[in-house]
């Protein structure tokens, strides 16, 4: 494929990997369950979004590209809701403690 597309993919996928790194650093260094939850769901989701963006030009066919976008949307939605659920669990645990 053309050089521009290859460069675009290289940059976005590397940026996605960087956000995964940032998420893991947050997981390891943040002091609190809630802050760690934030690092996990926000940073990793953004990393996945960038990876999907970088992979889109290389998908073989419209259907595969649609699947990539659907997966990303699904993970965004599910990740955000799961973060809410886990945060409620933390709050309930604190009020019972």
């Amino acid at each position, binding site marked *: 494929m053309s050089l521009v597309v290859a460069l675009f993919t290289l940059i976005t996928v590397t940026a996605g990997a960087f956000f995964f790194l940032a998420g893991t650093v947050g997981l390891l260094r943040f002091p609190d369950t809630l802050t760690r939850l934030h690092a996990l769901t926000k940073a990793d989701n953004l990393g996945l979004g960038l990876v999907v963006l970088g992979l889109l030009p290389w998908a073989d066919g419209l259907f595969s590209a649609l699947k990539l976008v659907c997966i990303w949307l*699904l993970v965004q*939605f*599910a990740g955000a*809701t*799961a973060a*809410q*659920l886990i945060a*409620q669990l933390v709050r309930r645990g604190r009020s019972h403690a």
Partner: protein
Amino acid sequence: MTAISAPDIGLVLLVLGVAAWTTAVRDAFAAVIGFVAYGLLLALLWVRLGAIDVALTEAAIGSGLTGMLLLRAGARAKATQPTAAPPGKLLRLAAAVLCATVAAGLASLVLYPPGPAPSLAPAAAASLPATGLGNPVTAVLLAFRAFDTFLEKVVLLLALIGVWSLAADGHWGGAPTLPWPADRGGALTFLAKILPPVGIVVGLYVFWTGADHPGGAFQGGAILSAMWLLAMLGGVASVPPVEDAALRLALVAGAALFLATGLAGFWVADAFLAYPEGYAKALIIGIEAAMTVSVAATLALLVAGPPARGVRR
């Protein structure tokens, strides 16, 4: 896909680490989460081994469904036997020795396989065009070894009846209890309203694509059952009583259609579970459709547990 490389070794070490942690940790809830993590990592391992159908099944069953089943079973065991003594040292040593022996046996089989490795793969691949399918795994499951698959569906039903038999006499035929969402209309209910429609489409797609690509009835059914369980957990769908006629019909549909097709094979094609020339693919897809419904219902009810309310006679 078959050459071992550094990332593969890393993955194997990660799997071993998680397995060791799961065995060593004391808290039951943590161990179940470790097991779920182990299952998800195994799915990645299967992908690296080239077995995509198995990876799909592992991802579908080994994560949420098995985790929820284990937690509910553990809670039930704790509730009914609160003072049970933990297993003694001798028992744990015996279990460890047995597990190590099985692992050593499997490892020796893989590392030092017999002369020309026994394999029916070439024969299966050669007969694939006769079935009209493109996925050899589906062909093996539903054409070459159809009897085994039929019996597996019956075994699933027997397991479900076994779970139901744990109900108190007065509740037989009643409905299982699932924890009611504490905040009706909150995040869980929101998830339960939005995700299942998407999941149903994906589940049906995975079933449909199993004819020619990795997928099939079991994986599709597992996804559908997870979505139904999610709807029940979120309070969006009610848990049906197990004596419900429509539910029971859905449970037996797969095995029943399989059996009917098998018996019809005596007249139409000279043998039990033989498919007539040219109709193989249509019959296989039909059986798979019924199986998807049955597997979805059976797995969801297995996780939901024995009936615990209603129908006190």
